C-alpha cells in the first residue's frame, strides 16, 4: 500500500476524486451518530456527482483505492479501517492505496474513541457489498452462479478455474444494485481481523516522509507566527510595527478584525519569530486579567453545595446513606490540562478571489471548511480542505479556532500563508481540559460494603460550547458519565449530580479520555479508600462488587494473576489496582511502584488486562494502551495549568513537564481478553486507567492518599513536608 501524502496544489477540490473512465465507485456515508449507517450506501457510475464521504474505488486497471475521512493521529486508524474493508472485500492490504476524503456530509469527526466502534459494521458492510456486486458481475460474464465463485486477493475465481480481477468487472459491477444486507463473514472466516498487521503508515513515518500539517510546502508560501491575547477577551493595545518590519526577512504584520491576535509574516519561521519579538505586542487585558488558579478552584468548590442537575438516580441514595451503619465522603480535585501535542498548532491557507485552500491537521474537516467559507465569504464548494497527518490529536484538533485564525490572516495577503505557533503560544493559548471537583459519598453496612453512593461532579459542560445541541434539556454533558454513571459496580442505590461551573478566563475542551479520565480517578480512588476502611484487600473488595459482571470480573482476575497481586512485593515497593468500564471496553490495571523519596515515583511495572470486544489489530491495541497509560501517568504525576493575572504560567517543556523515557514504566504488559463482543474504544482507555492505578499504588506506598492531581504538585508535596 502506498500512502498518498495529500499534499496537493491548489484547485484540486472534490472533483479531483472523480474518475475519467469507468470503474466501480462504492460510496458510503461515514457512520455518524443519529444517521443510519447503511442509509447512504450507494453504487454509482464514477462519472456521476456524489455526496457521501467514504469510498471504495476500483478502476479497470485493478487499482483499489480507499478514500476515508478518518484522520490518522497515531491510533493506527488507517490500518484498522483498511483491515475492516479489506477483510470483507477480499483483498490484501498491500493491494490497497489510500486517499483522504474531502469534507463531505458533516461526518468527519475523529474523536471520543469512537472510530472503531462506529466503523466496525458499516465498513465491513461496505466491503461486503462491493464484493457481492463484483462477484455477481463476474458470474454473469461466465453464465455461472455467484455461489460457485470465490474471492481472494482481489480476484474472483470460478469452480472451473476461470478467473477475473476486480478491475476487469468493476464497470459491470457498478451497474448492479447493491445488496440490502450484504452477507458478512463469521469470525472464524477472518483472515485479517484479529491478526496483528503492521501499521500501514510506519515506513513513511520512519523515513521522515510523512507530511504533517506543519510540513506543507505550497509554492510561494510565506510563514507567519502569531501572538494572540494572553488573556481571553483581551485586545491589542500597542505594538512596534516598524521594529518588526526592520527585521531581515519580515514581509508583513497582520492583525485580526477583532484585534485579538497579531501575526508577523516572514520568508521563514525564524524571521517571523524575531519579528514578533521586535513587535512586542501589548494588550488591553480586560476583565479576565483578574483570574487566578484559585478563582477557578474556589468557584468549583462552591458548586459542592446548592442545586445540581441529577442525570441519573437509582433508589433513594441520600436516604439510604443517612440510614446506613456508616457513611464516608471524600472530595477530589483535578486541574486544567494542556494538550501539548508534539506537533505545535499550525495551519496553511491560500485565499484567492475565486477560492480558498486550507492545509492542516484537523479532526473536524467539515468545521474547517465552514469557518473558511464564513471568513472569506466564499461558497462552501470553493473551499478545499486538505487534511494532513496529525502530530498528535488528544482532542486538540477537535478545535478549529486556529484554522479560523489562519484564514483571517491569509485573506489579507495574496500568497499562501502558513502559520506556525511557537510552543509557548501552543501551551498558553490552548483550550484546556477542564478542572473539576468531585464529591463522593458512600453509605456502608457493618462489613464496609456499599449500600448507596452519591457522586457530585462540579465543572464545565464542554459540549455546551463544542456542540450545543448535544447538551441535554436539563443542561447535562453526557461525556461526564464516562466512568462515573457507567461503572462496573452495581451499587444498590446511586445518585449522580452535576453542578455546572464554567471556568472564568479559560476555554475548556476535550482531552484524551476527558470524562473517563476525570471519573475514574475519583471512583477508583474512592473504592480503594472504602476497601481500606473495610480492611479488605482492594482486589477482593472489587471482586465482591462485580461478582455479577462477568467481563469486569474476568479482567480483574486476569490482571491480579498476571501482576502477581497475591505474591510478596520486593522491598520498598507497592501496588495499586484500578478497574474500569469506559468507552465500551473493560480494563483492569495494576501499577507496581517505588517511592525512594516523596517526590520521586519509579514505575517498575504496569500490568493491564483489556477486554475491548473483538480486537481488529491486536498489536496496535497494545500500543494504544501503552501510549495511553504513559500519557495518563504524565498528566497524573506532573501536569497542571495554572493562571496568574489571567495569564497561563506554563510556557514550554521546561515548565510544562511531560514524561520522558527515564521516567516511563520499566515494563508494561498488556493482556487482551478473547472476546466476540462488538469492538470498544481503545485510544483513551489506557489514559483513563493511569491516574487511579498510580494514585492507589502511591497511597499504598505512602500510607496516605493524594486526592488532588497532579500527584507530585507542590501543593501535595508541601502537605507532605508539613507532616
Amino acid at each position: 500500500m502506498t500512502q498518498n501524502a495529500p499534499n496537493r496544489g491548489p484547485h484540486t477540490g472534490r472533483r479531483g476524486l472523480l474518475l475519467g473512465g469507468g470503474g466501480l465507485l462504492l460510496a458510503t456515508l461515514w457512520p455518524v451518530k443519529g444517521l443510519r449507517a447503511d442509509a447512504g450506501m450507494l453504487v454509482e457510475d464514477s462519472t456521476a456527482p456524489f455526496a457521501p464521504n467514504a469510498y471504495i474505488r476500483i478502476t479497470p486497471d485493478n487499482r483499489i483505492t480507499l478514500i476515508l475521512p478518518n484522520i490518522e493521529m497515531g491510533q493506527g486508524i488507517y490500518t484498522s479501517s483498511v483491515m475492516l474493508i479489506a477483510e470483507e472485500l477480499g483483498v490484501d492490504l498491500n493491494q490497497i492505496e489510500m486517499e483522504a476524503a474531502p469534507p463531505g456530509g458533516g461526518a468527519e469527526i475523529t474523536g471520543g474513541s469512537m472510530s472503531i466502534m462506529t466503523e466496525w459494521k458499516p465498513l465491513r458492510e461496505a466491503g461486503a457489498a462491493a464484493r457481492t456486486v463484483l462477484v455477481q458481475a463476474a458470474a454473469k460474464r461466465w453464465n455461472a452462479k455467484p455461489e460457485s465463485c470465490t474471492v481472494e486477493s482481489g480476484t474472483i475465481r470460478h469452480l472451473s478455474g476461470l478467473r477475473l480481477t476486480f478491475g476487469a468487472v468493476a464497470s459491470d459491477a457498478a451497474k448492479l444494485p447493491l445488496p440490502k444486507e450484504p452477507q458478512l463473514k463469521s469470525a472464524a472466516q477472518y483472515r485479517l481481523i484479529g491478526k496483528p498487521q503492521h501499521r500501514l503508515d510506519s515506513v513513511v513515518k520512519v523515513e521522515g516522509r510523512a507530511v504533517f500539517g506543519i510540513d506543507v510546502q505550497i509554492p510561494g508560501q510565506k510563514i507567519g507566527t502569531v501572538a494572540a491575547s494572553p488573556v481571553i477577551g483581551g485586545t491589542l493595545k500597542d505594538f512596534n510595527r516598524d521594529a518588526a518590519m526592520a527585521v531581515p526577512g519580515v514581509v508583513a504584520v497582520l492583525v485580526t478584525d477583532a484585534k485579538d491576535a497579531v501575526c508577523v509574516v516572514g520568508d521563514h519561521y525564524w524571521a517571523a519569530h524575531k519579528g514578533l519579538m521586535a513587535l512586542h505586542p501589548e494588550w488591553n487585558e480586560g476583565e479576565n486579567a483578574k483570574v487566578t488558579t484559585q478563582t477557578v478552584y474556589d468557584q468549583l468548590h462552591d458548586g459542592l453545595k446548592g442545586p445540581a442537575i441529577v442525570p441519573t438516580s437509582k433508589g433513594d441514595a441520600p436516604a439510604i446513606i443517612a440510614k446506613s451503619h456508616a457513611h464516608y465522603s471524600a472530595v477530589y480535585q483535578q486541574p486544567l490540562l494542556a494538550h501539548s501535542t508534539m506537533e505545535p498548532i499550525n495551519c496553511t491557507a491560500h485565499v484567492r478571489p475565486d477560492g480558498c485552500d486550507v492545509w492542516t491537521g484537523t479532526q473536524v474537516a467539515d468545521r474547517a471548511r465552514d469557518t473558511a467559507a464564513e471568513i472569506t465569504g466564499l461558497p462552501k464548494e470553493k473551499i478545499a480542505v486538505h487534511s494532513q497527518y496529525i502530530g498528535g490529536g488528544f482532542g486538540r484538533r477537535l478545535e478549529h479556532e486556529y484554522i479560523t485564525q489562519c484564514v483571517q490572516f491569509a485573506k489579507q495577503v495574496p500568497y499562501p500563508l502558513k502559520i506556525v505557533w511557537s510552543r509557548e503560544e501552543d501551551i498558553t493559548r490552548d483550550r484546556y481540559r477542564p478542572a473539576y471537583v468531585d464529591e463522593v459519598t458512600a453509605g456502608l453496612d457493618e462489613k464496609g460494603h456499599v449500600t448507596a453512593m452519591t457522586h457530585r461532579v462540579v465543572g464545565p459542560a464542554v459540549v455546551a460550547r463544542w456542540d450545543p445541541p448535544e447538551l441535554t434539556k436539563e443542561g447535562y454533558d453526557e461525556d461526564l458519565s464516562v466512568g462515573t454513571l457507567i461503572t462496573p459496580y452495581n451499587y444498590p442505590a446511586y445518585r449522580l449530580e452535576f453542578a455546572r461551573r464554567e471556568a472564568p478566563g479559560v476555554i475548556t475542551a476535550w482531552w484524551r479520555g476527558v470524562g473517563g479520565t476525570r471519573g475514574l480517578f475519583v471512583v477508583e480512588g474512592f473504592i480503594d479508600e472504602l476497601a481500606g476502611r473495610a480492611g479488605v484487600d482492594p482486589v477482593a473488595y472489587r471482586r465482591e462488587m462485580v461478582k455479577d459482571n462477568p467481563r469486569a470480573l474476568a479482567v480483574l482476575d486476569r490482571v491480579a494473576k498476571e501482576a502477581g497481586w497475591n505474591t510478596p512485593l520486593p522491598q520498598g515497593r507497592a501496588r495499586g489496582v484500578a478497574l474500569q468500564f469506559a468507552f465500551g471496553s473493560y480494563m483492569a490495571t495494576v501499577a507496581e511502584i517505588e517511592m525512594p523519596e516523596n517526590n520521586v515515583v519509579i514505575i517498575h511495572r504496569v500490568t493491564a488486562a483489556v477486554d475491548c470486544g473483538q480486537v481488529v489489530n491486536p498489536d496496535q491495541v497494545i500500543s494504544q494502551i501503552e501510549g495511553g497509560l504513559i500519557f495518563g501517568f504524565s498528566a497524573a504525576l506532573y501536569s497542571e495549568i495554572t493562571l496568574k493575572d489571567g495569564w497561563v504560567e506554563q510556557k514550554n517543556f521546561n515548565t510544562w513537564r511531560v514524561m520522558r523515557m527515564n521516567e516511563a514504566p520499566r515494563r508494561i504488559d498488556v493482556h487482551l481478553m478473547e472476546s466476540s463482543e462488538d469492538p470498544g474504544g481503545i485510544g483513551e482507555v489506557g489514559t483513563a486507567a493511569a491516574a487511579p492505578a498510580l494514585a492507589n499504588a502511591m497511597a499504598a506506598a505512602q500510607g496516605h492518599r493524594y486526592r488532588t492531581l497532579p500527584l507530585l504538585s507542590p501543593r501535595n508535596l508541601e502537605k507532605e513536608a508539613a507532616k
Partner: protein
Amino acid sequence: MLTLRVNGQTHTVDVEPDTPLLWVLRDVLGLNGTKFGCGIAQCGVCTVHLDNRPVRACVLPVGEIGNRAVTTIEALDEADPVVHAVKKAWIDLDVVQCGYCQPGQIMAAVGLIRSTPNPSDEQIDSAMSGNMCRCGTYMRIRKAIHQAAGDVA
C-alpha cells in the same frame, strides 16, 4: 550568504547567521523531515547529525556550523548497518504512533548505537530522555534500540 554542507550537498543560503539550523533546513531548503517541537532544546524532535553526532537543530545557529557535515533523516544512509538495523527495528516493532517525534528519535537512536554499540536500559534512557514522545512510544523505542543493537552486533 552562508555555505552549508547538508546531506552531502553544498548549499548557499541567504539568512542571518543567528538563524537556527532547523529553520534553514525546513523553510529554506525544504527538508521537512526534521521537526519543530519547542525551539529550546527540550524535546529532541529537531535532532540531526553534525559530523555524525546528534545535535538539536533548533538551537544551533547556522553561523557556527562552518564546514561540518549536517545529516538529516532524509539522508540517513540505508547502506549503513546501524541505520538499516534501526529503521528495520522501528518497522518490525511498529514503534510509531502519530510519528511526529520519530525522525528525532531515530536520529538519536542511530547516534546512540554508533557511540554505544550495546546499550543497557539505563544507557538508552539517559541517551534518549531528551527526545520526548507525547504519544508515549517509549516502551517500543527501548525495545527497538535493543533489537537494532543486537542486529548490528
